[in-house]
């Protein structure tokens, strides 16, 4: 024969405690530093090798080489394809990639914020003028 109402202690204590619900977005809790949020590229450290693009499981990174000799390149990052797995960070052997821990609210009302171009501003302009955007696997590295 068992007992009735074994959770009585819990429910009577809850009447005097604050609810456990997190009232997001009214109160935003700090994410831990290890959170894999938005990707960021340090352009000075990047050499345009394209290992990150090769290893991305979602084809979210494209490295477009404008001029191989002078190392002018642009990296296109598609936020809407990214799965935030962090493999690109591991594949990069120059420590150029990092994932933010406080930029993770990435919803938008249209698709324009979902494509980010990393690179020198002149290079970015040139690539936008020339190459088509958002194509399938990278033109240079597959």
């Amino acid at each position, binding site marked *: 024969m068992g007992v009735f109402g074994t959770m009585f202690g819990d429910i009577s204590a809850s009447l005097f*405690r604050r*609810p*456990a619900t997190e009232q997001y977005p009214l109160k935003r809790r700090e994410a831990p530093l290890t959170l894999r949020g938005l990707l960021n590229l340090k352009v000075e450290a990047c050499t345009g090798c394209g290992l990150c693009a090769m290893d991305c499981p979602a084809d979210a990174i494209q490295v477009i080489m404008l001029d191989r000799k002078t190392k002018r390149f642009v990296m296109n990052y598609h936020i809407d394809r990214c799965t935030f797995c962090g493999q690109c960070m591991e594949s990069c052997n120059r420590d150029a990639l990092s994932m933010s821990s406080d930029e993770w609210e990435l919803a938008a009302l249209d698709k324009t914020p979902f494509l980010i171009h990393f690179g020198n501003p002149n290079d970015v302009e040139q690539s936008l003028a020339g190459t088509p955007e958002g194509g399938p696997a990278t033109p240079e590295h597959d």
Partner: protein
Amino acid sequence: MKPILTIIALWLFPSGLFLLIAGLLYQWFDRKLLALLQNRIGPRWFQPFADTLKLLAKEEIIPEGVNPYLFVGLPPVALAGALTAALYVPIAGLAPSYGFSGDLIVVLYLLSLLTLCMGLAGTNTLDRFSLIGATRTLTQLFSYEAPFLLAMLGPAMAAGSWQVGTITAYAENHWLILTQPLGFIVALVGLMGKLEMPPFDAPEAHTEIVSGALTEYSGRGLATFNLGRAVELVVGLTLVSAFYLGGVSNPLLFVSKTLALLFVMVGLQALLTRLRIDQTVGLWWRYGTLLVLVQWFIMILG
């Protein structure tokens, strides 16, 4: 003057619109308190109103194979039954103005009319879930009706009358919960069964049979049934608290006593697991009836 008062009494206060609003507010209290007991934030006060308005705005889909007149006609009948039952109970602490001798039985049968309509609505469709839900609803109706009736008749016997107004007046001087505790327990549990509140929500066990008898209902029909349930909640609470908790002579006492009873019911709801339908029937036909008969025995002797 009389017709205007009658119209106000029937449509606005204390029956009609006031009762619908009160019913939805009591539903909110139920949901909010259950949420607080489960350590979470519940809905805001206007949630049941928003739900009703949303349902009224949605399309009512009449499935194939049903009798359309029954399908559309049962919800208003159910709501009407619940609203009519309110005319004989002291809602908001006011003495029932339409009482007559023997109206206790009428009230209880009008409340059962709601459950019966839901059962009929379930059997009307071809849907498996509705059929099983309707079977369970009617089974539960048969099983708790007898003990609940006897528990309600306990105060009637003590007061020497079968009119709700007279019993309430008698109960104001005698707190029947102290002299008939077993009857109170049976009445409380019986009320939970009548309202299909957990742990007696096998008829609408949504992890087993989606929504029970009301699975096929949407839009207006579902809104009407929900309003009927809300009214039944208020009427049932008023009845039990008026009989056992010392009468409801003014609005403040009405609100406090019914809410206290609802508090206890919500506590039981949070504490217990859902019973299977055979366990519910077994419980009632064994313990419920036994307790009530013991109570009557004690009353007759003492």
